[in-house]
C-alpha cells in the first residue's frame, strides 16, 4: 500500500535512468544514509563502531570488488585478500616515502597499484576460464604475500615484516576517535559503492555481463574481451586495494602480510556467494552476515552461561555457522540479495496479492 509506484510517471530519459526510480526507495535510502551518517556515530558505543561497523564496511567494499569481477564479469578469483595486501602496503609506502602525501590521495594511489597488480594476474583470464582461472589467481594470493614478506623494502625494513599505519590526517584534522574513523570509512565506502552501482548500470557493466553470460557471443557483437576482462580485474582490484588500505588505516592500525592469507580471500568469496552474486546490495548483506554472525553466535553462547564449557561453545559456534550457511544456500541459492528482492516484490503487492 505504501510501497507503490502508481502515479510516478517518468517524463524524461534522465528520470527513467536514475538509480532508484521509485520515490519510496529514494526516501528510504536518504533515511538510511542519514541514520548511518548522523545516528550511528551519535548513539553507537566505541565497541560498536570499532569492533563491528568499521569491519563490516571495509569487508563490504572488498566484497563489492570481488562481486564486480566474479558476479558481473564472471571471472572467479581467489586473490582478493592479496589485492587488499597490495593496497595496505602501497598506502603505507606512499605516506612514508612521499612527504606531505594527503591520505585520500594515498588511498587512491594504493587502489591504482592494486589495480595494476590485478591486471597482471588477470592476463591468464584471456586464455583460461572457470576453475582453472581460480587456480591462476591462487598464484596471485601466494605470490603477493610471499613477495611482501620476502622483500623488506615493502615494510620499511621492519624485522618482523609488520607495518604500522601512520596517523590519518586530512586538512589538519586528525582521525583518531572511533567516530571519526567510522565516518571516514563510511564516506569512502559510500562514494565507491555509488560509483560501482553506476558502473554496473553503464556500458562497461553491460559488457562485463555480456562476457559473463557468453563470451563468444559478446565478442561477436563487438565487445573486446581483453579490454573488458582486464578492466574488470583492474576495477575489482582497485576496490580491494582501497579496502585493504582502510583495513590498515582505520581498522587494525598494524598489519602483517600473513594476515591477508587465503583464508581471508575465501571469506570474501563467501560474502559474495551468501550475499548474492552480481549484486552491490548483496555485497553489503554478505559482509554483514559473515562478519556479524560468528560474533552474534559467540555472544549468545556466552549468554547460556557456565553450563556450556568454553571449548564446546567455541566448537558449537563453528558448527552452527557452517550449518546456517548451508541452510541459506539451500533455501535461497541466489543469496540474501535475492531474498531482499523477493521481499520488495511482495511488499509491492501487499496487501492485495493475486
Amino acid at each position, binding site marked *: 500500500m505504501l510501497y507503490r509506484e502508481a502515479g510516478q510517471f517518468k517524463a524524461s530519459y534522465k528520470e527513467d535512468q536514475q538509480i532508484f526510480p521509485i520515490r519510496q526507495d529514494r526516501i528510504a535510502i536518504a533515511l538510511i544514509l542519514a541514520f548511518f551518517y548522523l545516528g550511528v556515530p551519535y548513539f553507537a558505543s566505541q565497541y560498536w563502531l570499532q569492533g563491528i561497523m568499521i569491519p563490516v564496511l571495509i569487508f563490504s567494499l572488498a566484497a563489492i570488488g570481488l562481486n564486480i569481477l566474479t558476479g558481473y564479469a564472471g571471472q572467479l578469483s581467489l586473490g582478493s585478500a592479496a589485492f587488499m595486501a597490495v593496497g595496505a602496503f602501497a598506502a603505507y609506502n606512499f605516506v612514508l616515502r612521499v612527504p606531505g602525501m594527503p591520505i585520500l590521495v594515498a588511498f587512491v594511489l594504493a587502489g591504482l597499484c592494486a589495480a595494476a597488480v590485478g591486471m597482471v594476474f588477470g592476463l591468464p583470464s584471456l586464455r583460461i576460464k572457470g576453475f582453472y582461472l581460480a587456480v591462476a589467481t591462487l598464484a596471485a594470493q601466494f605470490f603477493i604475500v610471499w613477495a611482501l614478506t620476502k622483500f623488506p623494502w615493502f615494510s620499511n625494513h621492519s624485522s618482523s*615484516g609488520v607495518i604500522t599505519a601512520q596517523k590519518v590526517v586530512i586538512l589538519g584534522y586528525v582521525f583518531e576517535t572511533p567516530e571519526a574513523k567510522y565516518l571516514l570509512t563510511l564516506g569512502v565506502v559510500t562514494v565507491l559503492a555509488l560509483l560501482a552501482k553506476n558502473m554496473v548500470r553503464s556500458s562497461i557493466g553491460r559488457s562485463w555481463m555480456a562476457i559473463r553470460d557468453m563470451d563468444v557471443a559478446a565478442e561477436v557483437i563487438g565487445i573486446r574481451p581483453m579490454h573488458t576482462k582486464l578492466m574488470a580485474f583492474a576495477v575489482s582490484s582497485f576496490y580491494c586495494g582501497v579496502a585493504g588500505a582502510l583495513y590498515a588505516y582505520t581498522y587494525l592500525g598494524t598489519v602483517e602480510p600473513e594476515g591477508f592469507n587465503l583464508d581471508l580471500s575465501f571469506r570474501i568469496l563467501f560474502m559474495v556467494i551468501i550475499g548474492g552474486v552480481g549484486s552491490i546490495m548483496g555485497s553489503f548483506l554478505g559482509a554483514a552476515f559473515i562478519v556479524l554472525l560468528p560474533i552474534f553466535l559467540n555472544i549468545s553462547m556466552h549468554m547460556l552461561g557456565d553450563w556450556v564449557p568454553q571449548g564446546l561453545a567455541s566448537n558449537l559456534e563453528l558448527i552452527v555457522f557452517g550449518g546456517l550457511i548451508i541452510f541459506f544456500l539451500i533455501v535461497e541459492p541466489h543469496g540474501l540479495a535475492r531474498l531482499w528482492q523477493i521481499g520488495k516484490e511482495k511488499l509491492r503487492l501487499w496487501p492485495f496479492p493475486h
Partner: protein
Amino acid sequence: MKMKKSALIGFAVAAALGASVVQAADQYIGLPSYRVGPYAAGGTGIYGGMIDYFQLINERDGGINGVKLTWDECETEYNNARGVECYERQKKNGPTGNTVVHPLSTGITYSLIDKVAVDKIPIISIGYGRTDATDGRYFPYVFPLITNYWSQSTAKIKFIGMKEGGMDKLKGKKIVNIYHDSAYGKETIPVLDAQAKKYGFTVKHIPVAHPGNEQQSQWLQVRQEKPDWVILRGWGVMSAVAIKAAAKVGFPREKMVGVWWSGAEEDTIPAGSAAKGYIAAGFNVAGTNYPVMKDIQKYVYAKGKGNMDDKSRVGSIYHNRGVVHGIITVEAIRKAQEKFGKGKSITGEQMRWGIENLNIDNAMLKKLGAEGFMPELKISCMDHEGSGKVKFQQWDGKQWKVITDWIDADKSIVRPMIEESAAKYGKEKNIAPRDCSKES
C-alpha cells in the same frame, strides 16, 4: 545502501551484550582465547592453565587481598580481526574495565599495540609479540615479558656453544635455521647473522611455507649441507613434521634445537619415536612436581573446577605456561594494589604501573611454590622483558626432561638492536621516548 538486516542483527547483539555485568570489588580480566582452529592445542592449554591459576587464587586465598578475580573468554580463532573485536568487546567489562590483555598471538598483539596506548590497558605477551617493545620508553603499555625471540636466539647459540665445549669452538661450525616463512619465523634472522659474524660460524636460513606439512626438499637440503646443528623455528604442525623429516634423512635429533613454540608435548608426541632426543628451549618447565601445581590439583581439580577437559594435560608444557601467565598477572595486580589501595579493583593504568614495577625473585617464587618453574623476573621502565632466561629441555620419548639450568641471553647483542628498532618505530609514529629516570 540498505543495511536494515545488519542493523537488526546488531540490535540483537547489543541486547545480548547488556547481560554480562560483573559485580564490584572484583578484578576483571578479559581473555581473548582460541579453542578451535590449527593452534587450539596451544590455546586450550595456555588459557586453561591461566584460568586454573586464577581459580586457585580465588579458592585458596579468597582472591587477591579479598578482591576476587573474574574473567570471561571470547573466541578469536587466532584471527586478527576477531581478536580486535574481542578486545573492544571486553575492554569496558567489570568494575574497572579490562585489566590486562593476553592475546597469545603475535598478529593480534600487533593489531592492539596502538589501541591499548589510547585505552590505557596493558598487553602482556610472554615469549611472543613485538620484540622491540622490550624498550619500554617507546612502548609504555606493551610487556613482552620473560624473554623475546632475539634473546632466546642468543641463549640457543650459547647452549650450542656449551655443548660444543665453549663459545670459541663455534668457529667454523655450520648451523641451519629452518624457519616458518612468516613474519614470526623471519624475526630471528638478523640476530643469527649478527652472532654468526661474532662467533665465526656459518648460518644458512631455509624457509618452510605455511603450514609446513611438506618439508622433504628442505631436509634434503639439510642433508646436503651437513650442518652441525639445526635450529627449528616452527609453529603448529610444522614442528612435528620437521622432526619426522629429520629422522628420515638421518639427521640426529640431539642436534636439533627448537624454539619454545615448537617444544611442547603436542609437537613431539605426533612425531612418535622420531622425537626422542629432540631439544627445545622453554621459559617454563613441564611436570606437576611443584607446590603450585600440587595446589592446583588440590584446590581446583579435586573440587571439579579445573578448566582442562583432558586431565592428563595438567602439567604439560602449555598448561604450565598458562600457570606462568597466571602467576605474573596475579603478582602484578598484587603489586598495583600495594600502591593504589589494597582490596580495591585496580584500573588498567594502575595495572601498567604494577607490571612495570614487578619484581619476582627466587624468594618470592619459593613462596608461590614455583621455584625452578619459571625464571626470576624484574621489570623496569627501560626493560620490559625482565629476564631473558630460558631452560633447555630434551624429549626422552615420554616426557620433557630439563637438561640445563637457566641460560641468560646475550644482552650485548640484543639490546642495541632493540633500541635501534624501537627508536625507528618512535620516529615513524612520532612518539617521544619517556624519560625513565622520572618514572616511579
